[in-house]
Every structure is written in structure tokens, then in C-alpha cells.
């Protein structure tokens, strides 16, 4: 067989973030992954802060004092937005992965209509719902609270 000494050309993370003319769903994909990582980061931080309770009341109060203040409030709000998007988009993905909303196989006739077009209302609905949650959350964080 031909021995090929090829030059590596895998896009890597650039494949998620840039380097091409991507469609909307690609950005939802990237946002889903980034918000997932953000939530994971928050989860780790949350465990560290709350575990300080095991070292007595003083340690707990110190830890809580360290994570209060306007910067942390904004940070928590960003976590909430990430949660709203990740949860609702996650439900959309679960539906899609069960074959709901992607349509049946069709004979491809140009111009092609793909499952992306069929599930578009789901994607738009998910983003709108996440935006509504973000606004209501914002009011709760900064106005009603």
C-alpha cells in the first residue's frame, strides 16, 4: 500500500470556534459546549465554597464573604443565563436525538431541504425561551431582589 507521509491538518478547537462559514446550528453547538463547561466550572467552585462549612462557622462565613459583592452577582447571573440556555437547548437536543422534529428521509431534490430546516422552529423556540428566562432571571437578580 502507498505509504503516505501526510501533513496534519485537523482543525481542532478552531473547528468549533471559527475558520469557516458556519451555519446557525454550529454556533448553538459551540454555545452549548461552552455553557456546559461554564456550568461545570461553577459546579466545582460551588463545591469548594460550600465544603468550607465542614471547617466551622467562621470558615463558612469567610468563604461566603469572599464570594459576595456585585462582581459575583454578575457572575452568578451569567451562570444563570448559561443554565437557561444549556437546559432548554439540551431539551431540544434530546428531542432531536430521538428523531423528533428532524423529518423523514426524503428524495434529495435541489435546492435541498435538510433536517436543519425542518427543526428550525425548535431551535428558534429554544433560543427565545432561553432569552425570556434570562430576562426574567435578570429582573429577579437585579430588580425584584
Amino acid at each position, binding site marked *: 500500500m502507498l505509504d503516505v507521509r501526510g501533513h496534519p491538518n485537523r482543525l481542532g478547537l478552531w473547528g468549533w470556534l471559527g475558520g469557516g462559514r458556519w451555519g446557525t*446550528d454550529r454556533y448553538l453547538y459551540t454555545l452549548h459546549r461552552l455553557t456546559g463547561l461554564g456550568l461545570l466550572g461553577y459546579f466545582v467552585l460551588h463545591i469548594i465554597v460550600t465544603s468550607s462549612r465542614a471547617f466551622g462557622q467562621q470558615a463558612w462565613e469567610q468563604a461566603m464573604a469572599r464570594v459576595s459583592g456585585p462582581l459575583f452577582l454578575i457572575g452568578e447571573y451569567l451562570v444563570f443565563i448559561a443554565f437557561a440556555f444549556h437546559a432548554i437547548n439540551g431539551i431540544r437536543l434530546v428531542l432531536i436525538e430521538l428523531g423528533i422534529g*428532524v423529518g423523514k428521509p426524503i428524495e*434529495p431534490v435541489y435546492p435541498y431541504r*435538510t433536517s436543519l430546516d425542518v427543526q428550525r422552529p425548535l431551535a428558534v423556540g429554544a433560543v427565545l425561551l432561553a432569552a425570556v428566562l434570562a430576562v426574567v432571571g435578570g429582573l429577579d437578580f437585579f430588580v425584584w431582589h
Partner: protein
Amino acid sequence: MPPALPGARPDFIQDIAMTNGNSEHVTYRVKHFDPDRDQAPRWQEYRIASSAGMTVLEGLWQLKETQAPGLAWRASCRMGVCGSCGMWINGKARLACNTQIAELESSFVTVAPLPNFDIVRDLVPDLTPMFDAHTVVLPFLIRSDRAEQESPTVEYHQSREELERYLQFSYCIKCGCCMAACPTFATDALYSGPMPLTQAQRYNSDSRDDGFGQRKTVLAGTAGPWRCHYAGECSRVCPKGVDPAKAIQLMKRELVLDFLRLRRHSRPTDLVEKPEGIKRRPDIPEAPARTV
């Protein structure tokens, strides 16, 4: 305006050649890589004349004839059928023969080999990983009547509805554009990728096939469809409307149903009964002798 070349199209056709007020010349930015000389790929620019309806592939031929005789790429049919000429053209995976320069709406044509595959030379990607993954998913009819498959005596029965369950996925020309566009394949070399998975679904949903159980061992593993998170880029770039993203989601549903033991297992379709007392019309010649 430069003088018309011998055999060039009439002026009025050349006038409508370029859209958006572009000149009649375009600049090709081409990625070069010579494994014997270069440490890394390099870009080179060329200016070429372009005309109405000219494809990116025709531009490459012109380049080779006039300015870059050593430039290498793959192409064969020039009509979007063979799947050889997948390239990264102006930031998107496309077939060079199926992409007109005018539709790029730019006076720059940037051409690179399909990413996510090693570069063999210039615009030639090494598609071996894709074809290896394709082989692993057993992309052929699997049935127990081996003798009939080897030496068919009659046809297998298949209704129009049964055909439509996989027809779309069978239009794939294995060009690799979907693999170059997939963000999961961009970071995960273990993922089979959209083309092989679509072909697995093509055979899984064929009423003549009985191979779901065998393919499942690959598909339910780490190389399978659970790596896909529906970025949909594969379906957006596929030049044949195969819609790999759809095939992969339908496959996930089948795997979930199978896991829950809710998947309907239907027997592969039977042979069509051999018609009796039928004679070949004398004006229809005998089928040629088998060669394999």
C-alpha cells in the same frame, strides 16, 4: 480589456460573466504542500481570467496549464458524481467541479485541501481514515442467504415506501465534505464521522438487510453517533442533499429503542417469486457473462 483569446466566448457572454461588478479576473489563493520540500503548507496567489459559468475546478486547470504545472488535486467526473474534488473553498467544504466562481461572490477564490485529513500534497487530502471507518460499519447488505447473495437467482422484494427509508442516504458520493465540516470530527479523531455513520444508517434502514445487530457493536461504542451533537454542518455542506445529520439522529433513535427493547425487528424481505413460463423477447439480448 485584454484582447479576446482565440476561441473565447463572445463579448456579451463575457460581460455577464462576472456578478457584483467584479473584474474578469479573479485571484486564486491556493494552499501548497510538497512533502519532499516543505515543512508546512504555504499559500500562493495567482491571478487568472474567469468567464461565465466557470467552475473552481476549471480555474485550477487553467492555473495548472499556465502558471502552476506542479499543482496537485483530485478530480475525475467534473459533474458532481465521483466525489473526488472535495476542497475547502472560501471557508466551506465544497466540490470544486460543482462550485461556480460567480457563486462565491468574491474576487478571491481561496482553495485548500479538506481539513481534518492529513495533506498528502497540495490540495490532496488523505481520506484513508474516512474509508477505514466506512469499512468498519459494514456498508453492505448483511443476510443469512449467502449463496443467494453470491449468485443471485431472483430479486429481493422492496416496496416504494421501503426504498424511501434509505434512498436519500444512498446518494452519498463519499466526497468527505461532511467530515471536513464536522466540528466533532475536528477535535475527536476516534469519532467515525458523518459519512460512515450515514452509510451505516443507510443499510440499517434497508428492508433487505439484517445486519443491525452486527453494526450495533460499533455504533453503540465511542466511535458511534453519540459523539454527534447536531451542529448540522455536515448537512449544510453536503453537495448531494444526503443530510447526514438526519441519518445520525434517526440512528440514535433506533439505538435507544433497541436498548429499551422497543425496536421492531422485522425479518429481512424475501425473494421475489420467480415468474414462471416467461420467455425473453427475442429482441432483448442475453445478459453478458458474469465477470466476478
